[in-house]
């Protein structure tokens, strides 16, 4: 029993210590460095917070994120219905297609939209390249799957009898949908919306590849202030502003998902074959899948085979070089190797920290423990919402002296990526673990099973079921991580996304084509890792 207690304590302390040392401390050090000079300097806050530009940038960040979120919801809800509530031939393939964007690294999403809307792209004539519209479209593309999966998962389990009753009482289809179904789905929609909003308001790789039209976002402004204006004070204050927005979003998300959990009572899966009455959502979903999802992907692949005025595989053959003209650094092949190796280490770290954490977060506890639990659950999401610039520079100033001089350690980049992957690992494990009815553990204990045996026989199968997905998320996230990695990259740790962005910014005729080919390779890697993870998933019986 003593060992059991010690194990639980360790399962709390190790993840908390990890986050404290590798996230809170570096981020905090960077923020303090920016705003603390012999005490807090209030003039800095006044200057930044009264600057018109600050609010223009904040406004644009919120506006872009809000439109991205609304877009993802408007398109995603019909998608959730068609892909999860209905059944039809080819549904699995359609679901897979809808999920691809979310597992793609943001850099690839950026490159895909440039390939579609930019120079030589099929929609070049619309003049949408480097506009706010293009950024919002890319945000919707990237987050569509979040809404479809979150809402679809709930929709599948809704009892159809409530709608049938309303229909019997004379309500039209749309009226029944609005008055019965929408309120039931609302918590899931709101919860997905909060997560999408979070991704939208901090997406660094996407804005770096798509450009930052208009006034730019908080993320680009922090980057500009710190690397171009060399003004770390303003950057720190803007980072704090960003953190405030993120915490507010997280609070909303947490409150809403708790409501979801309360209402969500697992009923048996309920799906119906597609009917004629489903034409509207079906058409809308088909149109979304073709124009929004498939088209940019096809444009990306097509562009990667374009060579001058003709076609060929030259861009792929050049991946063995470090570029043409303004070349330099690792070759793309080396970068792929680096990415896979670093991603593997990052995944192992994220699992070592994330699995115990998920077990801790999924146990039902009461009283002060419960509030500690929900604070921890919120805190691990923070890395998704803090500026990559702050984290990147924070690593280099905070982890710089023994015993933690990691600046020249090969573990620096994997650790940074593990911090970013951790929230997704935990988020993908906890719902499964939390769905175990507490009675099952109690029953086993009553029958004389030791706590270890309960863990192995009751939690174990659920853990294994979630683990495949968690590994997939962790690996795909670290393959795609761009922000922190780009600030820490050394020649032996240049990853594929870093090389792609550098190729895009370099003169030399083939570098653009190579960036496209590199993005296709990165997309394939990320998507096949996720696919393998899904396939390895086993449902416990």
């Amino acid at each position, binding site marked *: 029993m003593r060992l059991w207690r010690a194990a639980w304590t360790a399962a709390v302390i190790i993840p908390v210590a990890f986050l404290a040392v590798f996230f809170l401390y570096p981020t905090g050090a960077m923020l303090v460095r920016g705003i603390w000079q012999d005490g807090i300097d209030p003039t800095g806050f006044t200057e930044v917070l009264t600057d018109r530009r600050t609010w223009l940038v904040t406004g644009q960040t919120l506006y872009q994120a809000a439109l991205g979120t609304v877009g993802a919801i408007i398109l995603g809800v019909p998608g959730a219905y068609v892909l999860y509530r209905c059944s039809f031939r080819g549904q699995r393939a359609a679901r897979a297609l809808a999920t691809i964007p979310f597992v793609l690294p943001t850099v690839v999403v950026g490159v895909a939209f440039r390939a579609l809307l930019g120079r030589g792209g099929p929609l070049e004539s619309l003049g949408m390249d480097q506009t706010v519209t293009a950024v919002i479209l890319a945000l919707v593309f990237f987050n569509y799957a979040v809404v479809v999966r979150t809402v679809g998962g709930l929709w599948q389990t809704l009892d159809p009898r409530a709608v049938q009753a309303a229909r019997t009482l004379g309500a039209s289809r749309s009226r029944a949908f609005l008055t019965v179904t929408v309120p039931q789905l609302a918590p899931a929609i709101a919860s997905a919306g909060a997560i999408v909003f979070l991704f939208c308001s901090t997406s660094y790789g996407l804005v770096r590849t798509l450009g930052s039209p208009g006034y730019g976002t908080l993320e680009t402004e922090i980057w500009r202030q710190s690397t171009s204006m*060399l003004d770390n004070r303003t950057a720190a204050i803007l980072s704090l502003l960003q953190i405030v927005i993120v915490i507010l979003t997280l609070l909303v998300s947490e409150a809403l998902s708790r409501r979801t959990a309360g209402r969500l009572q697992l009923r048996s899966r309920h799906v119906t074959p597609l009917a004629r009455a489903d034409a509207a959502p079906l058409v809308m979903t088909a149109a979304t899948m073709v124009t929004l999802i498939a088209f940019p992907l096809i444009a990306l692949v097509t562009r990667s085979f374009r060579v001058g005025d003709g076609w060929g595989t030259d861009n792929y053959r050049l991946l063995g070089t470090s570029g043409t003209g303004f070349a330099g*650094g690792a070759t793309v092949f080396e970068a792929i190797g680096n990415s896979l190796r670093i991603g593997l280490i990052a995944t192992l770290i994220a699992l070592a920290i994330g699995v115990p954490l998920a077990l801790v977060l999924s146990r039902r506890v009461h009283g002060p423990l419960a509030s500690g639990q929900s604070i921890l659950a919120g805190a691990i999401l923070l890395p998704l919402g803090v500026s990559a610039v702050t984290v990147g520079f924070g690593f280099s100033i905070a982890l710089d002296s023994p015993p933690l001089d990691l600046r020249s350690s090969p573990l620096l980049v994997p650790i940074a990526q593990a911090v970013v992957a951790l929230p997704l690992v935990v988020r993908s494990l906890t719902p499964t673990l939390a769905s175990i009815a507490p009675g099952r553990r109690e029953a086993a204990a009553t029958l004389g099973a030791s706590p270890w045996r309960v863990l192995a026989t009751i939690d174990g199968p659920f853990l294994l079921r979630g683990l495949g997905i968690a590994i997939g998320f962790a690996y795909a996230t670290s393959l795609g991580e761009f922000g922190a990695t780009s600030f820490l990259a050394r020649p032996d740790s240049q990853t594929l996304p870093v090389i792609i962005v550098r190729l895009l910014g370099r003169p030399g005729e083939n570098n653009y084509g190579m960036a496209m080919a590199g993005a296709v390779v990165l997309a394939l890697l990320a998507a096949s890792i996720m696919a393998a993870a899904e396939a390895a998933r086993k449902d416990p019986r």
Partner: protein
Amino acid sequence: MKKTAVGLVSLALLAACGSDAEEEAVTILTHDSFVMSEEQIAAFEEESGYTLQTIAPGDGGVLVNQLILNRDNPQADGVYGVDTFIARTVIEEALLAPYTSPALPESAESLVVADSLTPIDQGDVCINIDTAWFEEEGMTPPEGLEDLRAPEYAALTAVIDPATSSPGYAFLVATATEFGDDWQDYWADLLDGGARVASGWSDAYYSDFSGADGDGPYPLVLSYSSSPAAAPGTDYLPDTCVRQVEYAGVVEGAANPEGAQAFIDFMLSDAFQSSIPENMYMYPVTDQELPAEWQEVAELSDTPIMVDPQRVDRGELLSAFADLR
């Protein structure tokens, strides 16, 4: 006893190896366009006895901020990639130790800044022109910066956002140098006249410029004097060029300042200097022969705008520019 003695000796040996290895390593912070071949690295390590480690966290701005942030505990011994337009911050913040390389030829001595920044390579940021377009239209090409502010030329010009791109910023400094206090009026004319401000060099050169691939709408674009070497039918306007010098220096408080000095000397060697055009698209600071295609269309300008690195106030210029738009 014997065991203890053996243990002590091996410990001492280990310690000696440890500290030796530390002394022999030299860490150089570079910008992310830095290129050095495997052979060159081997040659440097052979000649100097140091093992070379490079770190490339980003562009010039990222480099300088890294130096500022790590000032009390520098990670790098030397830095390469600080340019004319950010040199003032490096001097003001006293980030570098004095060092002037004996390998620097007399012809380049005038480029040294404050005895701590050694010039390694240079280039010109210039307006490039699609000569064929102007011939077809029968239009006289512009010559200097003054011509560009006329509406008929401004409407044909693609420049680059100074806040996000180093050539864009170089051009901003050029206009501030040429027009002094009136530079904002100059930019107002450019922007009112319809000049395009692209977000990055590749967007401007490949998407906006009509010369490189022949499909952009702007026949005038901000780029480098070396660009025409790779794009037939284009040229640069020598009177619009602003000279950009890239420097190396020894980091103040470095663990291995001698190693950094040795690396700076190496970068001035003939072998390294002659590889610069091919590897980094810049021009050597010593007298080396340029590649054949550069000699035809891409020599450095004879009449560049020269900027005093110590007079460029980066923060002030960029904030004033942000207010303009």
